[in-house]
């Protein structure tokens, strides 16, 4: 399977996954309008239909979806979110819970509104113009009845530039995939190394970027890895010329 074969049927888009990406990148589809969870669900359905996981396309999918998620979160973050990042996990969960409850409340309220709307289906109001002799004549309010300051205040309001959405809290990737690739290739020259070793002392972002780099190496057929048990050590091997790439490495 290739990702382009993944067909989507979403609220804002119907068609193959790669076309969706192209449209998002060309800004013809607003990422804010896209429910990324629906894309993931469609992918999971697709996997279920096939009954097997192709690591290569799964990797590609995860990378692409992660990128979409990051882009979307950047678009959605507002200033208040900054405080959220300083919360401990308990507080963050409370905050998140409050939001989920809010979303749920208004979703239910919207169902109630739709019921009302349907109940009123068929009720019409007259929307006919008044007879000509009764048309609203505009009586001119007296001279000087308006305060010019209203105009000045309106201009002042329009001059106010809204505070820019601060992206300070989004860490600027000081580590690049290219750098980490180089680092991993260096280690690979020894034949094998453990992941732990590759990220020793690194911050979380570097760890994440290293995972991406590792996926990239796997994709290019340069490396292969194994993990004996969950949370156990990950051993990374160079793919020797003699050793054929094992594509189904699950």
């Amino acid at each position, binding site marked *: 399977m290739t990702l382009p074969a993944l067909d989507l049927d979403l609220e804002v888009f119907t068609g193959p996954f790669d076309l969706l990406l192209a449209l998002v990148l060309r800004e013809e589809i607003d990422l804010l309008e896209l429910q990324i969870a629906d894309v993931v669900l469609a992918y999971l359905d697709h996997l279920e239909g096939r009954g097997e996981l192709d690591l290569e396309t799964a990797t590609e999918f995860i990378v692409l979806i992660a990128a979409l998620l990051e882009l979307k979160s950047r678009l959605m973050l507002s200033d208040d979110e900054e405080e959220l990042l300083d919360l401990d996990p308990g507080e963050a969960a409370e905050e998140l819970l409050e939001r989920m409850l809010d979303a749920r409340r208004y979703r239910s309220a919207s169902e109630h509104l739709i019921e009302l709307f349907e109940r009123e289906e068929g009720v019409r109001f007259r929307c006919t113009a008044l007879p000509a002799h*009764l048309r609203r004549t505009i009586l001119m309010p007296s001279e000087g009845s308006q305060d010019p300051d209203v105009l000045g205040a309106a*201009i002042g309001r329009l001059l106010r530039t809204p505070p820019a959405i601060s992206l300070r809290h989004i860490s600027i990737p000081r580590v690049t995939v290219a750098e980490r690739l180089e680092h991993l290739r260096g280690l690979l020259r020894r034949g094998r190394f453990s992941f732990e070793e590759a990220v020793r002392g690194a911050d979380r972002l570097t760890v994440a970027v290293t995972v991406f780099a590792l996926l990239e190496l796997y994709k290019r057929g340069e490396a292969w890895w194994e993990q004996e048990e969950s949370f156990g050590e990950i051993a990374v091997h160079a793919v020797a010329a003699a050793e054929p790439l094992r594509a189904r490495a699950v």
Partner: protein
Amino acid sequence: MSEETAAELPPSDPALERVIEALLFLAPDPIAPSELASAAAAEELSVIAALAALAERYAPGQSGIHLRELGGGFTFASDPLAEDAARRLFSRPRTSTLTPAQAETLAIVAYLQPISRPEITRIRGVSADSAASTLLERGLIEESGRSQFGAVLYRTTVQFLKLFGLRSLQERPDVAQWDPSPEEQAELRERLLRAGEARAGGGPPAGE
């Protein structure tokens, strides 16, 4: 409808009568019995019977709404008795205060005239069409030629000056008093456009 015709008619079907009543209430123009019949999926004779019953209920002296036959069709009209009250209700001056959208649009025209709608929209960050139409209707702004791109330009009117008690445009209040960032040197128009684009979610404002 003459007495003789009514005598030959079938009795009015209350449900059909209500449908006809609703249709006449909604329609802006007189409707012919044949049109009513095909809309209500009923015999024309039954429609005529319903109309006869309605004519009795909606007769002068019975109701403030009258059923009238006009140009071969039927329509409801208001009782002339209500004329004075209607004039008082509908001819009152429009509320003299401007809505926020109107105040913003008028202020933009007052300070930057002549100016086109697209530009007003850019500054407001949302469409100014309905506000501009109301201001035109109220005679506070008027057309003043076209921009090089063919868009209609607007300027304020003498009526505007009178309403705000200004002897001339030079008496517009000084923006400095409401200016949130007085240290900025750029021209007012340019700053308004920049703020408008930031509000509309355009590129980040300069300085970021």
